[in-house]
């Protein structure tokens, strides 16, 4: 196959970010325009200061042109994230985070830090959460089996990060597992 091996089995982070572009977010436009008809739907009208909902990619593009403010999702707050971090460090299993939290948070902190309350503290909290989850993921490797990995609430970025490693490891475990011996000895009866 022409595709390099690391692109064959798991989507890259860039591809995941692209998929996140389809998510609908609220914006406060800073310009006046009637409804626009796009392939994915009709968006607008844009009448400041009324909020309107557009896909992430459009919000991103408008924000970069300084034509809107992005309204961050309700989980992008210091309160919510510190609660999750506490949960993450006190419980054994992974806590339930929005499935694409890593991508959304990265994009928002990257292009719209001025629309978020206390972006630096949020950045630190997210990093702590990510590290706590990674450590747990490693511990869960002990219970890995050839058939399934008993891991719940893994998010899309984390899945793509461990996908190749886990599937190859499970392959090897599968090969090392012996089934009850089949009656094959006849083959060698000379």
């Amino acid at each position: 196959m022409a595709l390099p091996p690391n692109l064959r089995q798991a989507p890259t982070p860039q591809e995941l970010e692209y998929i996140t572009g389809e998510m609908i977010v609220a914006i406060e436009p800073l310009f006046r325009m009637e409804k626009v008809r796009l392939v994915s739907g009709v968006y607008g009208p844009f009448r400041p200061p009324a909020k309107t909902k557009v896909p992430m990619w459009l919000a991103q593009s408008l924000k970069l042109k300084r034509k809107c403010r992005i309204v961050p999702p309700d989980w992008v707050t210091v309160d919510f994230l510190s609660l999750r971090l506490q949960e993450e460090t006190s419980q054994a299993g992974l806590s339930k985070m929005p499935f694409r939290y890593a991508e959304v948070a990265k994009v928002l902190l990257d292009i719209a830090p001025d629309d978020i309350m206390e972006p630096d503290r949020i950045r630190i909290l997210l990093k702590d959460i990510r590290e706590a989850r990674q450590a747990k993921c490693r511990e869960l490797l002990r219970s890995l089996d050839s058939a399934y990995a008993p891991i719940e609430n893994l998010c899309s970025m984390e899945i793509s990060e461990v996908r190749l490693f886990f599937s190859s490891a499970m392959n090897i475990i599968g090969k090392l597992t012996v089934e009850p011996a089949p009656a094959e000895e006849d083959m060698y009866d000379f």
Partner: protein
Amino acid sequence: MDNEYYSLEAIISENQKIDCTFQLEVPELGYLDNSADENLKALTKLPLPCWLAPTMLYAEWASFNMPRPFNNLVQNAVVAEPRSVKIGALVGENGRWYSFGKMIVDLLDDPESKKLADTLKLTFKGRLPDLMDQAQHFTGTASAATRSGGEEVGAEFRSGLDAAERELFVLAQESSRQVKAWYESSDRIR
């Protein structure tokens, strides 16, 4: 690890030799033992390669001793602490401990074969979390080389990796590097 016809890994690990004892006299095979006799005498000890040994053993022309990388001493050691044994160094150049072990498992009869297979599997699983940990720490190869202090344990562990584990290590390192690069990238136009 698999016995597939086109698997290069299987071909490489078939070059391992097993100490066999011939149970009967084989005519015209004396040259195998470098002896002047035309016939190979019964009770001659001879290392046979893994691709030849199964035929001999199943036909009961020969019996074999447990190879050194899987004797009781090593088995006890890996059961006690899987991470402390340099399993890659046990089986020579290529360090395919699991593949070789799997072949021995196929040669043995049930209680022993099950025991060895379980040991192999537990060893592999026991080493996985450390393997992933190490791989994620060593995402930047340049900075990895300069690190020191408290790293000796990790370096020790890495030098004893099996060939299959080394492949996993590279996989985990690569995906970890990708995610890291994505986190550090920016869409902002400056």
